[in-house]
Structures are given as C-alpha cells and as structure tokens.
C-alpha cells in the first residue's frame, strides 16, 4: 500500500523534471505530500471507525431493549408447543377414557373426539399466529429503529 502511494507520488513528481526542479526540492515536496496524505487518510479511517463504533453501540442498546420482548415471545411459543404435545400425549387419552367409562357409543365418541381435536388445534394455531405476529412486529420495529440510527449517525458525521 505504502509502495503504491510512493510510486504514485513519484509519477506525479516526474512532471516537475520538465521544470528543472532539483532532486532535494523534489524530495521535500514528496515528504510534504506524503504527510498531508497520511493525515487525510488517518482522519478518514478514524471517522469511519467512529461511525462503526457508534452504530455497534446503538445496535447493542437496541438489541438489549428488544431482548426481553423476543425472550417473552419465545417463552410463549415454547409453552404452546408443550401444550400441543401434552394434548396429544395425555389429554386426548383422558378424554377417550372418560367417554369409554361413560359407555358412550364408539362411533359417537369418535365424532366428538374429531370435533375436539379440530377445535383444539385450531385454537393453538391461532395462538401461535398471534404470537408470531408479535415477534414479527418487534423485529420490524427493531429494523426500523436500526435503520434510523444508521441514518442519524451518518448524518451527524457528515
């Protein structure tokens, strides 16, 4: 990188040869140009790093803010999965046993159980749908705020 910069400066300085500028003056000019360039590049990188740092800091703050929201929704989703599994592994058997104990006709029992399974799973699906909407809503808000932060930080640095 440094060699490239040197070569580029040398190429520009060869144009001074036609003016008869001596080698020492050319050397001084080269040092001055390099110093100016170094300062300029350092400042430019510093600015970019600052923007990056501020963005990361704000992003982490936002994540912290929404972490609780996302944790809350994932706990509900886990509860719903557990409930669904418990319904099929336990509750349905209890229902079937109750119908048998009461001596309900098998065909009749099957009809009612079919209705129960349909209603129960529909209600669980609906609960998941409500929860997923809440998660998507939170992610949407997070994205929106992140975009706003990036734009605000960039504007402030310009």
């Amino acid at each position: 990188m440094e060699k490239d910069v040197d070569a580029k400066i040398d190429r520009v300085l060869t144009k001074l040869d036609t003016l008869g500028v001596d080698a020492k003056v050319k050397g001084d000019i080269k040092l001055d140009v390099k110093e100016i360039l170094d300062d300029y590049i350092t400042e430019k990188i510093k600015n970019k790093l600052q923007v990056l740092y501020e963005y990361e800091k704000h992003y982490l703050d936002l994540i912290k803010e929404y972490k609780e929201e996302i944790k809350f929704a994932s706990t509900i989703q886990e509860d719903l999965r557990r409930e669904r599994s418990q319904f099929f592994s336990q509750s349905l058997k209890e229902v079937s046993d109750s119908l048998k104990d009461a001596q309900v006709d098998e065909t009749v029992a099957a009809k009612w159980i079919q209705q129960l399974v349909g209603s129960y799973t529909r209600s669980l699906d609906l609960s998941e749908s409500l929860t997923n909407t809440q998660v998507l809503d939170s992610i949407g808000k997070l994205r929106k705020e992140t975009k706003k932060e990036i734009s605000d930080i960039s504007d402030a640095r310009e």
Partner: protein
Amino acid sequence: MLENKIEEQFMGITKSELCDYLNVLHVLRESMVFDFTSNNYELYISMFKYEQNENLMNLAIDKYYTGWVNSHWDQYISQIDGGQLNSKNISVMVNVMHRLIKESMSTEVHTDLFVYLAKGKLRFYEELLQIGDKDIKRYNELLYQYEKDKAIFERTLREVQQ
C-alpha cells in the same frame, strides 16, 4: 383487501394485550377438555340422546362448537372486568372468532344450520372489522349471540325430533 384488514388487527398489540387474548384461547381449550373429562351433563346427554340419529348428533356437535366459539367473547369480557373496551381490542377478539369459524368451515363438514348461522356470523364480523370505531354500539350484538345461537339450535333440535 379484507384479508389484509384482518391481518392488521393482530399488529401493534402490546404484551399485556397479547397475554389477554392468549389466555382467552387457553381457558376455552381447557374448558373444552374439561367438559369431556368431567362428564359435562349437557354434553353427555346429547351423546346418548341422539345416539341413533346422525343428523341430530351433528346438530348437537355444531351447537356445542358454536357455543364454544361464542364463549371466547364472554371470557374476554369477564377477563378485562373494569378494563377499557376499545375498538382495537374488540377487533382482535372479533378476528379470533372469525378465524375459528371460517377455518372450521373450510376443514370440517357441518350441518346446514351451522353453515347458515356461520355465514351470517362471518358477514357480521366482517362488517364490524370494516366499520372500526365508527359504530362501536354494534359490538353490543356480540353479547347476546351465545343465547341466540343456543336457542336456534335447541328449537331446530326439537323440530327435527318431532
């Protein structure tokens, strides 16, 4: 367009509101299982009474399901006892009941009476969702739907038996 409108009803709800809606659904799921495991009198009576008549049995099943869907509204009202009822939370609950009925109609076979009542109900829910807060008084009609549907099913059951 209506589908988008319905989807919108679930957006922007707070954590506490979400808990309320999920609780309504959970309570009604539990109560349905409890009706079976606790030998609920009304439920088991119809299982024996209409054992020999499939049409009557189907009516009894649809009557039970309709009552169960309507109970979501009653449960919500009792849950937010003293809380502010507004067009937003009413819309979410109407949407919940709309979905329970519409999805049941598209996946299960129902009696003609259920289909007739359900279609009227869906039209009513859709009107409410589109009206928003312009005519909040119409939401009061939700309050007597449970008793109205129950009476219509019982009347039909009596007529078919005669």
